[in-house]
């Protein structure tokens, strides 16, 4: 089960993004896209996520997983189909292998909801005339 490694990677990336943004006090939720062909089990990931969040800025954050169905297309037939599981990667019309998947391999942090303080007062860069 590598869902723990995935959960730790998610927490790490959100922490880094929060640090870059500055002033984030808590993370409420993380929205994750999990493709049907990503090889990740959402339930196992939710369990691990809670553990991985403990003691971090994400403590108590909710993981919202969006399942992305696997889809493929056949350019010559102008056909697109749900590949299913196990995936069928050949065109149901002409039988040739698809060029590429349309979707299904996603394992992506789509977005987060976080709490932050008042915006920072950024130091203004001097404009040319002021130099």
């Amino acid at each position: 089960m590598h869902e723990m490694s995935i959960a730790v990677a998610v927490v790490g990336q959100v922490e880094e993004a929060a640090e870059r943004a500055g002033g984030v006090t808590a993370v409420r939720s993380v929205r994750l896209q999990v493709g049907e062909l990503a090889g990740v089990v959402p339930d196992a990931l939710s369990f691990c996520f809670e553990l991985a969040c403990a003691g971090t800025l994400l403590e108590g954050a909710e993981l919202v997983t969006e399942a992305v169905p696997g889809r493929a297309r056949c350019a010559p037939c102008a056909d697109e189909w749900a590949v299913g599981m196990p995936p069928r990667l050949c065109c149901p019309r002409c039988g040739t292998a698809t060029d590429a998947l349309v979707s299904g391999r996603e394992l992506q942090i789509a977005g987060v909801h976080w709490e932050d303080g008042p915006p920072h007062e950024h130091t203004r860069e001097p404009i040319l005339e002021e130099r």
Partner: protein
Amino acid sequence: MCRAVDLHQAVLAKNDATAHTLRAGLTARGTTVINLLSSPGSGKTALLERELLLARERALPVAALTADLATENDAVRLARSGVPVKQVLTDGLCHLEAAMLHRHLEGWLPDDTRLLFVENVGNLVCPASYDLGESLRVVLASVTEGEDKPLKYPTAFGLAHLVVVTKTDIADAVEFDEAAFRANVEQVNPGVEVLLTSARRGQGAGALLDRALAAADGAPVHAPVMSRQDAAREHTHPHVHAGPDHHDHADHHAGPGAMTQTCS
């Protein structure tokens, strides 16, 4: 103040970046990595023992790194070939990651290594998600495992550059249906080559070494369908950009207690 922020970051971006750097660095010094994946007991070590011995006979500078949860048994077996071998103990971790491999190569991998065989932890699920900086990913299945293995583990078989069947010497005894196996491989990874081998009887001896050398020499490697996702389309998929209303998860598989409306 609660803020909704779009990140759009691949979860494994860090591993992928490390793998890219590792691949570029190793390629620049003339080393090609071959990542071997299979269930426990499929015969990765036996196949590798034979291929390493052949490499030694041909005076090819090769090395092998083998990962297990425990014991140095595999390293002891592989080291009999006389090539440099390193055992990595993962202490329970079910897969190797690029940074781990990088750490273990530092100060160990001989400079002139042409091929580095990495025997991943015996597991067909987790290692499939991690790029180790390899140029050739080989997935093995023994004839005893059932012809539907590729369908049961589509991510592992679907991302393979080469599929190797092992233990063909007992294929008849276990009534291995080669045609069915090939058809199942073809379903999840159209066009990938399937090699038949028997470490005991010598069938397919040297074939893995030849494929690895070809990849090292820059011959085109099979591009699995599953590794090709149309990037342009990916970003127009409705699930990727949820639109201005980030709270509408009606069409998504939301976890228990979906996002609150108080966030703005």
